[in-house]
């Protein structure tokens, strides 16, 4: 079982190293297959670990395995150790399973790119980093994985490094994530100082003994990391820009896996968050605000990938809402189904972008249903799942979160209302996209590309992963149906520390069904409005200039950060250069060099070049020495 976990971790790393070392000696296609194989071997390892855990009694489903002591300083030691428990295995299966499909898809999508080998090496590196993050048995290894996924994300967003926007987006993502990494590191310092260990077991056992202030600080630091990595308000502006990367990267990193790491962190560290209820509430509140704001912005975006990116932010907002209110299992459940249907949406969008030779502007699309009927079906499944329509996966997971919010009292019910408005928005923006892209007559651009390379929807390496994900997006939610069965929740329950069940709130079956009915009704309403405006075109497209500007400028977050952080920093830097660097530091350095040069000139004058002068100096010196010797004796 632990062997499976190690294989799962090491296989993608081996793939990345191998592709890098072999370099030009293997073909680009071989590199792609090598990367795919390495991730699927990892999936095999994860399945082995999964079966191994299933064989055990629920209470015993936890194993820690250490390779070696990674670092030791005084009494403080950190091992390179993995934790295999239901939560970690769930993430391992999602990361390697969905990841493997997306890497396979990349073989078709990236075909013909100049630097394909580099791409596949990065993809394997990313999968390894993500696995390190979810398998870590202590916070330091988790932070190492956390940083490495940030690095892989940076490398892959900026993969097309000749495009300035891609490079800028990569830097933006990296810098904003570094902020979260820093707050997490600060939280870990508090833990090292107070608890003396970063092992999950020790920390969770001793968290009770910490003072409220310290627990709040630790939880706040962890939340900072989670918010940055999961692109929640206020550190969310990097995610839409990250769409500059190749589409499979968006699917894998910025939809299915890395951005959900924040939710994983909250669920993993739930004993700490339970001791800091205010911070948990803050997490749920931020999630709700994000799901509303992102849903609103998605209404006006014209880039197909950006619409899906904002919907990702919005869905992760739901997960934060669930996890913040203590519905950890439901948050993880939505994380899983979201990985399926969002990867499906991105990959289907990738098929369209591939067909249209890189065009992402929805205004130039239209009528694609006739040209790409199977892509339409796949995209529609993803969209319905995203909008939470039964019996697709999103229905079960999103409604579970909403029901938990409803069941958790006053504050939760306020957030419940927000989540419901979000459900309406989700139906609206999702189907606005579907109707614009697929319905109507084929646009000139679509006709041009269809005439150029026929009706094909893509090579099999691209269509097969989409088909598999479409099936998963349909059936993925059936592992938990309110009132009938809940194996997913039971599976995660052993992760609860000191309690029987993981979840803090347990909605009744009635609450579950009421929430479902309202959410589906609102979702349908959203779809209906989208149909009237963009499908049947009976209603005109609303034109409220002020609102539209507000949404198109994304609530001026970028401009705000520019004014609050960027400009003052640059101004201070300018002052420092003008009044400190140039006169003080530069001046003193120049003084030293000038002094040295002048001293050298003075000494140089002694070297006259006259032989007799040298001889005289030697003779004089000898005479002085003799005089000294004589005098001393």
């Amino acid at each position: 079982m632990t062997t499976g976990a190690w294989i799962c971790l090491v296989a993608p790393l081996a793939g990345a190293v191998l592709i890098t070392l072999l370099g030009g000696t293997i073909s680009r296609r071989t590199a792609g297959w090598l990367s795919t194989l390495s991730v699927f071997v990892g999936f095999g390892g994860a399945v082995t670990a999964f079966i191994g855990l299933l064989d055990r009694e629920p209470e015993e489903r936890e194993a820690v395995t250490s390779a070696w002591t990674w670092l030791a300083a005084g009494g403080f030691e950190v091992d390179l150790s993995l934790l295999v428990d239901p939560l970690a295995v769930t993430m391992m299966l999602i990361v390697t399973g969905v990841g493997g499909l997306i890497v396979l898809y990349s073989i078709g999508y990236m075909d013909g790119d100049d630097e394909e080998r580099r791409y596949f090496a990065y993809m394997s590196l990313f999968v390894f980093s993500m696995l390190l993050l979810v398998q870590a048995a202590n916070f330091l290894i988790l932070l190492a994985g956390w940083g490495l996924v940030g690095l892989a994300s940076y490398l892959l967003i900026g993969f097309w490094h000749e495009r300035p926007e891609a490079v800028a987006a990569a830097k933006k993502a990296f810098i904003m994530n570094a902020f979260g990494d820093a707050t997490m590191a600060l939280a870990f310092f508090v833990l090292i100082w107070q608890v003396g260990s970063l092992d999950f077991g020790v920390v969770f056992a001793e968290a009770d003994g910490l003072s409220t202030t310290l627990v709040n600080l630790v939880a706040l630091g962890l939340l900072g990391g989670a918010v940055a990595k999961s692109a929640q308000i206020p550190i969310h502006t990097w995610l839409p820009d990250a769409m500059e990367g190749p589409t499979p990267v968006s699917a894998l990193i910025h939809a299915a896996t890395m951005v959900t790491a924040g939710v994983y962190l909250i669920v993993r560290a739930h004993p700490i968050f339970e001791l800091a209820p205010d911070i948990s509430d803050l997490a749920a509140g931020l999630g709700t605000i994000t799901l509303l704001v992102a849903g609103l912005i998605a209404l006006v975006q014209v880039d197909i990938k950006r619409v899906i990116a904002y919907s990702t932010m919005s869905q992760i907002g739901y997960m934060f809402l669930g996890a913040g209110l203590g519905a950890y299992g439901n948050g993880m459940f939505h994380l899983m189904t979201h990985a399926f249907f969002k990867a499906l949406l991105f990959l289907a969008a990738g098929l369209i972008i591939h067909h249209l030779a890189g065009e992402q502007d929805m205004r130039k699309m239209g009528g694609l249903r006739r040209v790409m009927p199977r892509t339409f079906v796949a995209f529609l499944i993803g969209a319905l799942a995203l909008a939470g329509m039964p019996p697709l996966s999103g229905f079960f997971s999103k409604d579970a979160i909403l029901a938990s919010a409803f069941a958790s009292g006053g504050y939760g019910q306020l957030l419940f209302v927000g989540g419901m408005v979000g459900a309406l928005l989700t139906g609206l923006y999702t189907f606005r996209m579907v109707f614009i892209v697929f319905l109507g007559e084929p646009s000139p651009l679509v006709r041009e590309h269809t005439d150029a390379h026929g009706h094909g929807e893509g090579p099999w390496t691209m269509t097969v992963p989409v088909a598999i994900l479409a099936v998963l997006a349909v059936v993925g939610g059936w592992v938990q149906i309110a009132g009938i069965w809940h194996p997913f929740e039971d599976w995660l329950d052993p992760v609860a520390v000191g309690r029987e069940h993981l979840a803090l709130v347990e909605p009744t079956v009635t609450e579950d069904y009421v929430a479902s009915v309202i959410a589906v009704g609102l979702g349908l309403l959203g779809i209906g409005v989208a149909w009237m405006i963009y499908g049947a075109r009976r209603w005109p497209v609303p034109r409220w200039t002020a609102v539209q500007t507000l949404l198109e400028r994304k609530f001026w977050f970028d401009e705000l950060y520019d004014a609050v952080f960027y400009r003052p920093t640059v101004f201070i830097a300018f002052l420092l250069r003008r009044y400190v660097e140039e006169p003080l530091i530069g001046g003193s350095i120049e003084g030293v060099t000038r002094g040295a040069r002048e001293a050298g000139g003075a000494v140089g004058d002694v070297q006259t070049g006259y032989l007799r002068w040298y001889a005289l100096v030697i003779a004089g010196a000898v005479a002085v020495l003799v005089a000294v010797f004589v005098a001393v004796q």
Partner: protein
Amino acid sequence: VQGPDVSWYLVVAAFLFSIGASGVLLRRSPLIVLLSLEIMLNAANLALISFARLHGNHDGQVFALAVMAVAASEVVVGLGLIVAIARRRLDLDVDRLRVLRG
């Protein structure tokens, strides 16, 4: 056999050394400078041999022999340089060979 006192030898040596040193410092022809150097070396030899005689052992004489060997090789190098300078039709004047000034 009794000779003059050792101090006389030393006086002669000092006298010779001073002549040589003045030649090195004052003359401008490299040939004369070399000759003066030889005089200085021989003054040193004389002093060494006088002390050897005074102390009754042979160390000083061995040193004097070594100095003669060094003097011979030094003259070879020095004369070689002077010939090389002369063949390039440069002035044989040590004051004009001052390219190495600081």
